């Protein structure tokens, strides 16, 4: 009997650990809600809009209760150029926990067009692919936002 309950406990614990593992691997945060925001537009007004969205979301929740990741690809990758006029604001949001991901595929394409690799904002991380990254995050339960 004792062995039976120990086995049940072991199975249940394993099941709980397996269910929790993917979420813990994506993020170590205990955020209640997570947002992934996409910017892929040429329109420069979208840059300010997406940064405003991120700010508003942070303000709407207590610290640590929300997680935001902005993924930039295509023409939207310009937001994460090192000299972008919004660089200071991006740094400030990064200090507040917002993550910035730059599409590696777009970066490669732009490098080919320009003849040199554009400098990316040091607060951003280059990911394999912007669309792929968004897909991963959505699968993990992130709310998808495209301003």
């Amino acid at each position: 009997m004792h062995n039976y309950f120990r086995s049940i406990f072991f199975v249940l614990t394993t099941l709980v650990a397996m269910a929790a593992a993917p979420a813990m691997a994506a993020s170590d945060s205990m955020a209640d809600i997570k947002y992934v925001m996409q910017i892929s537009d040429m329109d420069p007004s979208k840059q300010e809009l997406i940064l405003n969205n991120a700010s508003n979301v942070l303000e709407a929740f207590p610290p640590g209760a929300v997680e935001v990741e902005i993924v930039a690809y295509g023409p939207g990758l310009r937001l994460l150029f090192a000299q972008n006029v919004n660089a200071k604001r991006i740094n400030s949001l990064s200090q507040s926990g917002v993550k910035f991901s730059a599409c590696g595929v777009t970066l490669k394409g732009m490098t080919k067009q320009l003849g040199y690799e554009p400098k990316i904002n040091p607060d951003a991380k280059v990911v394999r692919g912007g669309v792929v990254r968004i897909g991963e995050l959505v699968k993990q339960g992130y709310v998808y936002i495209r301003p």
Partner: protein
Amino acid sequence: MQNKKQNKTLFKRTMLGAACALALAGSAGSAMAANWLMLQGTEPEGASSRAEVWGFIQADYQADYSGANPYGFAPAIQVPNPVSVPGNYAAPKMLGPNLNSQAGFNVSRARIGVRGTGFPIDDHINYFLLLEMGNNGTTRNSNSANNNAFTSVKATDASITLNYIKGARVRAGLFKYPGAEESLQAIQAHDYINFTEVTNGLLLERFPNQAFTTCTLSASGGCAGATGNLGQYTTAQLQAGASLNGFKNPAGAFRDVGIQVFDAFNVGKDWELSYAGMIGNGNGIEFDNSDKSYDKYAYVSAEKKYGGSGARAEGLKYFAWTQRGSRLLEITSGGGLKSYDRNRSGFGVKYLKMPYRITAEYIKADGMIFVGTDKPNFYFTGTSASADGNGITANSATARGRGWYVEGGWYIPNSRVELDARFDTVDRNEDYANEFRFNKWTLGTQYHFNAKTRLTVNYEIRDYKMVHPNTTLSGTNTTTAIGNATANLNGVGNKLGVQLTASF
């Protein structure tokens, strides 16, 4: 000679200031606050459009309350018995650019442009194109020979900026030269309908008709039978098509075709230093350099930034500038074209921190002093003596002028209303018998419908006069001539203006 030395010194100091700005530079970066050099010559890095369409329209109504001239104009050349010719009007009493009425509606500016970075992932290159379709001194063409005035579309800006060298951006094409605040500031951001008299008289260049034109005085005091030199006209004559604008070329619009090196730097926590050096044809918005000489421009500014961005960025800005050039003119019949210096310089300060704004600027001019649209050549060539009657032959081509203005604005808190007041003064033909001074108060109010549209109402109180009304010159009866001009200028009255500005 003394003025040439002073101008040279000011030019050297301005260039030294620019060099210091470079030496002290922190980062040559994206400084954009209320900085017209950067706002007009560059695009926001990483956030520009391929082609952003923009523009503005200014529609207005103005009414000039001046009285008709009691006398004909009689310059230094003798009119022994001045003839009273009531009912004539001179240019200062008429509404520009048409100069044929004292009240009416106008579309003073209607501009459409496109700007951006043609290849948006590369911020190194941006462009700026702007067309003017309104009715003003730039678009109003006047051929005084047949009074065939018409309004045409003009390109006022067509430039490309290369942003490859840190600290030294290069802008080439047709664009505003770096200079006085009123001239450099975007016109749709002006807080008043009309320029100050110092800017209008000394800086907004009217290019003279180069060839000598004679003036044979008529009894009425106008130039009879002359080409390019125009007398006063009655209302009936103006309605019949007579034109008080004898200038064949459009006004310069504070622009030139050339090449400029410029940039802005963030220094310390909240200071921004800017500089610009430019060389251009010295021919306004026209595309030729037939005199084979170039105008040179230099500009420096230092601004303590308080916040905000764009046209209404807040800060305290100190600035200085200088311009040196020359113009060809034939001042005697058969004398041939000769070169006359045209130098301008100034310095000022602008403060903007809501709800207050204060601006002050001092401007000096040496050579090619504009004295009126109805005398596009004559007043450059006419003889005049110094104020003390020494009989020194001189003309406005070698004359001097100076002026200044101070203005302030109050944005009434929690409202859309702004109150403005400005005083400006300009002295032209300094120390000559026909030295004249224009003083003007402008009282204004603006209602901001939104960030892009506003209504401006201005009331101008004008006091125009000859500085030496009792000057007597040996051998001539210039007392009469100056007295006539004094009486005519005394009749310059106040002016009301209402303007609607909509940007898009």
